[in-house]
């Protein structure tokens, strides 16, 4: 059955950052330079093509955008300046908005203003909430229990509650992702053992990002890995060791050393990335979508206030520490509450999943191909 082309989609994607895709004349240069395009994984040209032709369903079902790490090679060597790399980035944004059933993500990506507003509102509500709660049960001059302004016990519960909500959202999105890319594909029947066999891919890529290392340039991978790991460490510390982290007076090195490492990692990498995005010298940092800025700024705010309140608290300035803590939470809540499920942060989950799904798909197709027989040599014109 013939697929109806939709010349309008390309306009829609512009809002997501794909401004130059129409320039592409399909010489195949980008796929040829990309270390990830092999056999039938034609990255990024095929996605560019689907986008030009407005094949929405095909795009929704494709994992290729997640398999690209935007090293910038393709964009630099593109004979038409069609920015394949940026197009893939835009597609990732678009896909995120497609996986998200609430539609909030789409709103975020299509209007930076809306996202900023949402973030600000969330921040203010958080502040209001915690201030009231703190005053109701403690004094601004106490950081540590008894009658601490923001006792870790309470915060801990709040964290878990928030985490719960996020997980629900994220998991539903991931399931939708599975449905688009594998589930609904009529002629793709994945036996369970393949899922099992490939499951290891998830933690492996999540923790090592080793695919990223295949790119010609290694530095971006290191930065990315550092950022990701610091973030994960911090997450673990907060979700499980908040007590040790927050309560004083003594410094418990078994825990805090990780805290410091993570903080340094977070601040270092985010500031590095921020400067790059401002400088615009390297291809992959040339074009910045509003979401990229918001994401970075939030991270920096959170990391900075986090360490600041720690220092203030240790130096006995409890009041100042509490205020900083409030500011910290004002950053944390929107970051976790909005960025993770609806915006850039979600790729933390989608990328490893994409690799998992794609390997599952290949495995399945391989099995099918074995049955079909070998593939033919290039066809004479």
């Amino acid at each position, binding site marked *: 059955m013939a697929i109806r082309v939709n010349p309008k989609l390309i306009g829609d994607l512009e809002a997501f950052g794909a401004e130059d895709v129409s320039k592409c004349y399909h010489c*195949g240069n980008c*796929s*040829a330079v990309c270390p990830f*395009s*092999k056999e039938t994984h034609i990255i990024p040209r095929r996605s560019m093509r689907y986008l030009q032709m407005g094949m929405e369903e095909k795009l929704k079902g494709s994992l290729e955008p997640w398999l690209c790490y935007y090293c910038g090679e393709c964009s630099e060597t593109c004979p038409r*300046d069609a920015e394949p790399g940026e197009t893939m980035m835009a597609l990732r944004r678009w896909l995120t908005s497609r996986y998200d059933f609430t539609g909030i993500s789409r709103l975020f990506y299509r209007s930076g203003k809306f996202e900023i507003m949402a973030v600000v509102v969330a921040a203010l509500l958080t502040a209001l909430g915690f201030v009231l709660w703190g005053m109701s049960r403690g004094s601004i001059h106490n950081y540590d229990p008894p009658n601490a302004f923001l006792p870790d016990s309470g915060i801990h519960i709040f964290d878990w509650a928030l985490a719960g909500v996020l997980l629900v959202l994220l998991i539903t999105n991931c399931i939708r992702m599975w449905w688009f890319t594998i589930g609904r594909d009529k002629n793709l029947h994945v036996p369970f053992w393949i899922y099992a066999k490939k499951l290891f891919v998830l933690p492996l890529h999540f923790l090592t990002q080793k695919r990223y290392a295949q790119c010609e340039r290694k530095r971006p991978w290191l930065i990315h890995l550092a950022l990701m790991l610091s973030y994960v460490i911090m997450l673990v510390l907060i979700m499980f060791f908040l007590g040790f982290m927050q309560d004083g007076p003594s410094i418990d090195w078994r825990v805090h050393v990780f805290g410091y490492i993570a903080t340094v990692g977070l601040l270092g990498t985010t500031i590095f990335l921020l400067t790059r995005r401002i400088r615009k010298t390297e291809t992959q940092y040339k074009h910045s979508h509003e979401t990229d800025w918001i994401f970075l700024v939030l991270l920096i705010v959170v990391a900075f206030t986090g360490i600041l309140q720690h220092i203030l608290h240790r130096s006995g300035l409890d009041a100042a520490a509490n205020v900083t803590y409030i500011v910290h939470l004002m950053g944390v809540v929107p970051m976790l509450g909005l960025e993770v499920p609806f915006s850039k942060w979600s790729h933390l989950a989608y990328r490893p999943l994409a690799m998992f799904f794609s390997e599952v798909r290949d495995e399945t197709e391989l099995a099918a191909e074995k049955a079909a027989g070998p593939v033919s040599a290039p*066809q004479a*014109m």
Partner: protein
Amino acid sequence: MRTGVFICQAGEADQGGLDLHSVEAYAANLPDVELVRNLGLRPALDPSVLAEEIRSARLERVVLAGDSPGFFKPAFTRAMAQAGGSTDEVRLASFRAHGAMSGMGTVRAKSVLACAVFGVPFSLAAVPDTTATRPGTLIVGAGVAGIQAALEIADAGKQVYLVERTATIGGHMAMFDKTFPTLDCAACILTPKMVAVGQHPMIDLMTYAEVEDVTGSPGDYRAKIRKKARHVDIDACVACAACRDSCPGKAPSEFDSGISERRAIDIPFPQAVPNAYVLDEASCLYFQSDGKRCGVCVKKCPKECIDLEAKDEIIEVEIGNIILATGYDIYDAGKIERYGYGLLPNVLTAIEFERLTNASGPTGGKIVTKTLKHNNRKKTDEWVLDPSGDPPKSVAIIHCVGSRDVQHNAYCSRVCCMYSLKFAHLVKEKLPDAECYEYYIDMRAFGKGYEEFADRIAEEGTYVVRGRTARIVQEKGQMVIKGEDIISERMVDTPVDMAILAVGLVPAEGSAKLAEMLGISRDRDLWFSELDYNSDPTDTERGGVFVAGACQAPKDIPDTVAQASAVAAGVLKSITSGRGSDSRAELSLSEIEARARSLVQV
């Protein structure tokens, strides 16, 4: 006639230092001009809005001015129709088409605009006066274009001064093996013409010479030509090769595009015209040692026609017309690291392959891969093309190298697709069991018999793959081409023994100097600009200066030859009538205005 002037820039080229404000002001003062609007750069135009504007201003004629106003014309035509006006009265004042973008500037823009407002084609109004013309003609460049033009004019019994930078005429065509699509050997069809040029009484052939300076005015030019010291008496030399065989100085052969060695004193190729040797000072021991060493050739020469003390001569000629036929150079493939040219031994440029497959080339026409040979002089091992080398089992030809690429040359080089297909044929003909791959983007087989030729190549079993490869790499001693086969939708890593880069064409070295010397402009891609793309493809803004062949834009042989004969028409026309046209550049705004006005009357 109530006229409205709309200025809209397509913003293709830079604005060439145009002062649009003064153009606007000028337009406003032209008769019947009711309104002047500057719509700016790439305006989004709504015909119905424009229609309203035309209606309210009761315009009977609309003039679109700008670098390429044609891009907006349909919107205005539709608006005019909606407004109930005559669509024939939507007129264009294209600054780019008439040289305002390329140096002629604001004044030209005004005159173009004036003509459009009067409803007169610019080319009708802007006709320069004629000037008395000398019978002599100077032709710069003796490739196939220069040769053809020279013969046309000389056969008509008119004096021609043919100046060629290298030591022989023939240009690139003489280096080729076969010519597409008929596959007749280039030498077979070119050499007779070369011989004819060499023998022609009306052609004063100056090889190994360059134009130093041109002064004077259309119809009466004076050219200074530097005849570089050849150190060999052309008339006496019998090309016996005695000097060559004794010469110790070696250098890469220019004619073989560096894939073979020549001596310091040598002949470019056996059929060279003039058929005489030439001494290259740069590689000659005698000159390297300021006359202290060597000089053996002088002793060996049986006809005593070598003079090591010879100096450059400056010759002055007086001519009426000048024809530029400087052709092209090959783009430097080394600029694209991904293709490994210069690093991987068996990555050749197209012109290198032409010499390799040419019967008179270093391997006698055998297609072989390079072999590692020890160079005793340099004490190093180097890759050389030697008849004893093994033939490649598979050959890849990569199209659009440096062409159609905004990172290099944005333009298409026009000839590469066809010569690449020709290569495939030659490979298949000489090595029937060799695999042959063509990696292309668009197969541009546009000429007479070209499409049929392309089909034939595919039938011969060459794999014609759509997809420009991006890398050539060495993997475990095997050269691999990494690319995408777009039609069969998969990435392909093709192991090959030889890769031929279909390198694009760039303007010949020194064309910038010539353009400046003669006061003619060059287009965005640095080829010489013609007077008018459509109706004057071989004339220039400067009277009595013509362009022919690839120096005006890449061209294949038939199109080049046609242009060469075409310029002959222009030249002969001016010689027979004794009068040629002056430079359009000399025309003042008021003159053009006046002419346009007078033309409106009739």
